[in-house]
């Protein structure tokens, strides 16, 4: 990555124009935003018909990898450059549906497709074990549909289209979670379904009210037209509905109650995928809407955003971390940690400064790396342990030292130790908070205290994995390769190394996040 970047005089790392680099080889470049959605979308029905063992998985993985490749090209194309737009059906923008890939969506696309590819790649044995083979085509089809939904949201520039793809992703996510072996997965999914649908419907009401007042659904058009009606009651109400609805989907404290059980009882691999991107997509829409559409027209909007959401973010950080410390199940522990981490992102956004947004967006990327990796390791642990209870994995580090080492790396990234990706977003967040005046110092205190709490809960796991339990005391690594499927092992280490790589050479995500933050605050990139 670095070789492509060059450092301009103002100290920012800029990329060579990707399009110029890639265009001669890629005739379909203008269609890429569309293909990003179409590849998983059209592969999903195919996968449903692939019954021979393993074929559905292979096809799904191939589609996901292809989507990842497209996301990489898109990211390199838009970084530090104008966004790509695409008129579906060639109908002009406010009338037809427009797709739009800018730095923010490019970053999110990388996260989504990357998470899907790595987890699918590593997840074959784990999923094959959890699901009877007759049900596998359905599952992998649902997986691709979830992927379709997520990327569909990320590339869309149309409020209602986002709703449609939100529903695609939600329904598919319910299926992914319901595949869990424990019956508690079912009750968890039902709760998720109810809360998720309520959230989506709130969003629908919100955009309905905005549509009523502006007559348009295109986000950019909406942002312009809303200034005439900015402080009318329906718009205020719409802001409320949209924020609450998306907060439900993003599991923002205290609307997170669906999340811990849903993550805990889903198949391990699906948890890794969803934990890496599901809530972030909702947060993405929230930021888009609140900043691009509402921010500049509704007076006092910044104050409201900060005033209502910042306390929630702080509470979420503290409560999430606090509960995680006392949690006995590894997956639930990590799920509560996710609640706290979403709090970080929200906290950055609620500062309503470029630096704060930059931190929030960068943390979306880095948290996906850390949490995705941790859940993948859990999946690896569970190939030998009976469950993800902390007692059950006691001493597992002696059985699989290398897998465990990956856990430590990702855990350190989650804590925010320097040299790992997580450190960079914490750094930005603290810097942004320090710019915020007296309250900022208190926020720094919160961030630091919760980092310590993260140390505590990660170290509880490390201690029990190293020193407790009854796994045999053989440090013989041959048993590890026998126990952990090789693909999963590779996937785990890809993510762990990515945590280290992006801790040192993070030019691409930082550049994307910085221009995304500028974009949201209304400055041209």
């Amino acid at each position, binding site marked *: 990555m670095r070789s492509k970047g060059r450092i301009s005089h103002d100290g920012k790392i800029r990329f060579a124009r990707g399009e110029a680099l890639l265009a001669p080889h890629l005739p379909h470049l203008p269609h890429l935003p569309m293909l990003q959605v179409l590849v998983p979308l*059209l592969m999903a029905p195919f996968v449903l018909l692939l019954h021979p063992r393993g074929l559905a998985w292979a096809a799904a993985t191939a589609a996901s990898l292809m989507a990842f490749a497209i996301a990489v090209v898109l990211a390199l194309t838009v970084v530090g450059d104008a966004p790509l737009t695409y008129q579906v059906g060639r109908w002009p923008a406010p009338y037809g549906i427009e797709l739009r890939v800018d730095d923010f969506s490019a970053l999110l696309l990388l996260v989504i497709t990357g998470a899907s590819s790595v987890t699918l790649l590593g997840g074959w044995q784990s999923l094959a074990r959890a699901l009877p083979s007759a049900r596998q085509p359905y599952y992998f089809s649902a997986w691709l549909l979830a992927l379709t939904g997520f990327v569909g949201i990320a590339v869309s520039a149309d409020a209602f289209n986002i709703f449609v793809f939100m529903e695609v992703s939600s329904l598919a996510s319910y299926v992914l979670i319901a595949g869990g072996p424990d019956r508690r997965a079912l009750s968890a999914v039902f709760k998720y379904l109810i809360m998720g649908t309520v959230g989506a419907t709130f969003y629908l009401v919100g955009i309905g009210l905005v549509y*009523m007042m502006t007559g348009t659904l295109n986000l950019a058009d909406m942002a312009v037209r809303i200034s005439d009606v900015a402080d009318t009651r329906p718009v205020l109400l719409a802001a409320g509905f949209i924020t609450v609805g998306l907060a439900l989907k993003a599991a923002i404290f205290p609307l997170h109650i669906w999340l811990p059980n849903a993550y805990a009882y889903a198949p391990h691999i699906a948890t890794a995928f969803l934990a890496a991107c599901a809530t972030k997509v909702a947060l993405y829409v929230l930021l888009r809407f609140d900043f691009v559409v509402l921010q500049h027209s509704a007076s006092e909007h910044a104050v409201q955003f900060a005033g209502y959401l910042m306390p929630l973010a702080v509470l979420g950080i503290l409560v999430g971390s606090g509960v995680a410390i006392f949690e006995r199940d590894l997956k639930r522990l990590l799920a509560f940690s996710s609640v706290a981490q979403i709090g970080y992102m929200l906290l950055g956004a609620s500062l309503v400064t470029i630096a704060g947004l930059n931190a929030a967006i960068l943390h979306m990327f880095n948290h996906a790396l850390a949490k995705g990796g941790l859940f993948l390791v859990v999946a690896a642990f569970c190939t030998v342990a009976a469950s993800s209870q902390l007692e059950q994995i006691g001493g597992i580090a002696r059985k699989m030292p290398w897998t465990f080492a990956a856990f430590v790396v990702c855990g350190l990234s989650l804590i925010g130790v320097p040299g790992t990706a997580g450190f960079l977003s914490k750094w930005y967040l603290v810097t942004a908070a320090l710019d915020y005046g007296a309250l900022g110092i208190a926020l720094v205190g919160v961030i630091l205290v919760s980092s310590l709490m993260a140390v505590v809960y990660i170290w509880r796991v490390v201690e029990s994995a190293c020193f407790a339990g009854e796994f045999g005391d053989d440090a013989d690594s041959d048993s590890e390769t026998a126990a952990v499927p090789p693909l999963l092992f590779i996937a785990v280490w890809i993510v762990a190394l990515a945590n280290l790589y992006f801790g040192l050479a993070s030019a691409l995500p930082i550049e994307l996040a910085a221009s995304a933050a500028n974009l949201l605050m209304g400055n041209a990139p």
Partner: protein
Amino acid sequence: MTTLFGIFLLTLLMITGMAIVHTRNLFVAVMLMGIASLLIAASFFLLDAADVALTEAAIGAGISTVLFLGALALTSERERKRRRSLSTSSLLQFGIVGVVALIVIWATFDQPRLGSPSAPVQAHLTPWYIESTRDLIDIPNAVTAVLASFRGYDTLGEVVVVFTAGVGVLFLLGTGASSRAAGAPLSEDNAGLRHYLIPRILGRLLIPFILLLGFYVQFHGEYGPGGGFQAGAIIAASVILYALLEGEQRALSVIPQGVLLAMMAGGTLLFGAVGVAGIVLGSNFLDYSVLSEDPVNGQHWGILLIEMGIGITVAGVLISIFHAFAARATA
């Protein structure tokens, strides 16, 4: 006059809604829900939304009711009795709900009034849609034009939602075929209403007409209200009726599970393929005008094909879901 009638319908709807929440008998609630759907459909009709009214009637009152009833047959028809006390939590919930309702009503006073021609909804995009439907697509039904062409991508998403639901239900419940022991003799349950002569005869007489209606709605969508969703739902309803009359097993032998799966996937793929053809022919995804020499003609072809895709998928999914539910009952 129509406004007053509309208000009467809506008042009735509100009362029905409250009754739905209040009753402890789930069967009654489902039936009331069907009535509510019909009332909403009637209101939609008064509000000039013929397409939506048709859909709400077919899906809200029809398919949805069948599914709820199927679920009730497998679970229980009554909510469990519990000591009814006005606890603080239920008072709180009631209070919150009331306050939110009042806030929403408070907000309405800044809204454009019903039917106001100066409302942004009417003023901003609508004239373009009406005009372009005439000039660029040349079909009478503007709803179909917007649905299938101007916002065809939304519709693709919608088909994918339906497909996802089908995949999800089949994943959760298994396909009807696999959960039943092969070659089991037809049980009393499984035989449908075969022993009841009059409903059977009447039903058999009805089915061809329903099917015909379905196909009419499918292919007439460009001219009048209707289209793939409604047609798919109606065709599914006829198959479901057949299954109710003749038994699950026979319905499955007419359209086997494999075919249903192929319908689910094939319809979605057809829609996608039409869109991709746009790319291949040098334009954007879902641009139908390149499908033929004459752009307007191309739009016709595109709309026809994707509506077929929608209809096939919707019918396939709904029938599959019905079979999955029904298979539970007989298993």
